[in-house]
């Protein structure tokens, strides 16, 4: 096997290609094999057998975006844990103290969000 750190990602590329191949076959085959008899009614969005009232893509409650924002914040912070997790063995107490401070700040934000009711799903 040749050296080079990026080379270990080459098999992933081949896997993507194989996946695309399988997916492509699956998407194209019915175009050749399956019948096509479109009609207006068939092509309407399914809404329990009724004709939909108004479009589906509408405004959505801001609540979803709020949770999504919180997620992004926390998720980025969790990524910092990975390199730290590898180094705890060598850095010992220093790593503990530093991460302790980091988590403390994280917790303040978390408790603030909790108290603000960000995790309450209004019913």
């Amino acid at each position, binding site marked *: 096997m040749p050296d080079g750190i990026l080379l270990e990602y080459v098999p992933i590329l081949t896997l993507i290609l194989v996946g695309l191949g399988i997916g492509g076959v699956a998407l194209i085959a019915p175009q050749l094999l399956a019948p096509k008899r479109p009609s207006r009614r068939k092509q309407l969005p399914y*809404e329990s057998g009724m004709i939909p009232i*108004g479009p589906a893509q*509408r405004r959505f409650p801001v609540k979803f975006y709020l949770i999504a924002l919180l997620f992004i914040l926390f998720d980025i912070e969790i990524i910092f844990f990975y390199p730290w997790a590898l180094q705890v063995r060598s850095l010992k107490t220093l790593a503990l103290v530093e991460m302790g401070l980091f988590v403390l700040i994280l917790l303040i934000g978390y408790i603030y969000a909790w108290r603000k009711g960000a995790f309450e799903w209004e019913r």
Partner: protein
Amino acid sequence: MAIREGEVQEFTLEQLKHLVSERALRGETVLLNVGPQHPSTHGVLRLLVELDGETIVSVVPDIGYLHTGIEKHCESKTYTKIIPLTDRIDYLSPMSNNLAYVMAVEKLMGVEVPLRAQYIRVILTELQRIASHLVWLGTHALDIAAMSVFLYCFRERELILDIFEMVSGQRMMVSYFRVGGLWRDVPEGFEEAVRAFLKLMPARINEYERLLKRNPLWLQRTKGVGVISPEDAIAWGVTGPSLRGSGVNYDVRKAQPYSSYDHFEFDVPLGENGDVYDRFMVRIEEMRQSLRIIDQALRRLPRGPYITPDRKVTPPPKEELAWSMEALIHHFKFWTEGFSPPPGEVYHAVESPRGEFGVYINSDGSPRPRRVHFRAPSFVNLQALPIMAKGGLVADLVAIIGSIDIVLGEIDR
């Protein structure tokens, strides 16, 4: 205006503005059709649901997709021939429907029913209640995705349907009760079959209860969901387990005992909070009480005739036709012309598995009723759905519909 194939009749918000909130007209909320083709509306119920995200702003039930015209049809049938139509009103409890109808006619004509017939009627309608509650439990659990309970319930329901087939020749559309008694006496082996069922069932009910009641997910999904206060429930005319779940003690079997229900000891289980969980517990407990009633009725089942000897409402026994000219003529007249109750009107209610099932008959003295009306408990109970569902989530809606236990055949009649 008839709609041809391929043509699409679209609704605009403008046409629905009397049903939805201001916010829907401004496009802030979404109008979603749940049903008629939806897995959890228990038939062909359509709900127009206004959603804010996933929170329900309002629910408007729309019925009529299963209209069969049974009430109108009754006006062109003789009194005896209406019985098979009543099976098809609430197709999950034909015995109760039969009972309500024949008892209304009996009341109208003042017919006495032999005690044996009354007891057998009690046994069969209570079995029917269990069968219906089993379908309810199975589908309700399935709606909340506890899918295995569904098939366990149907397994036990089969046993009841086998008993029905034994007595009436039919599993579902039994038409077994007649004005004045029963179609025929119960066959040999009936008592053994019911006893075997009584022996098996308590353990099975415990099993269902364990499967669900000890499951924290089930509790989360049902407790505090779809609450209706006793006042609201009474105001909207809710009856049956849905009313008793709110703690109102009203059971037609106790309030206006019929068919010797006062001979038997049983409790009326009541809920406290009026939520989905309480309605669930009430029905589970009702199955146990039904077993108790059946057990008592079976123990004390008297011997004697299974139908009144009153020839006005009963055809002559078959063997008499061989030697009696009068009997033959009477038989012919009975089946072609039917019998004529006195003019007047009558209402009789029974406690069907879903609530107070009432039959109103208006007679003009002819062999056919002038008007028959059925007070269908599902129809009335459904009215409470918008109150229960308001402010809940889409997932709650499904649980609530299941907990009201509606049968669309009964709603649309």
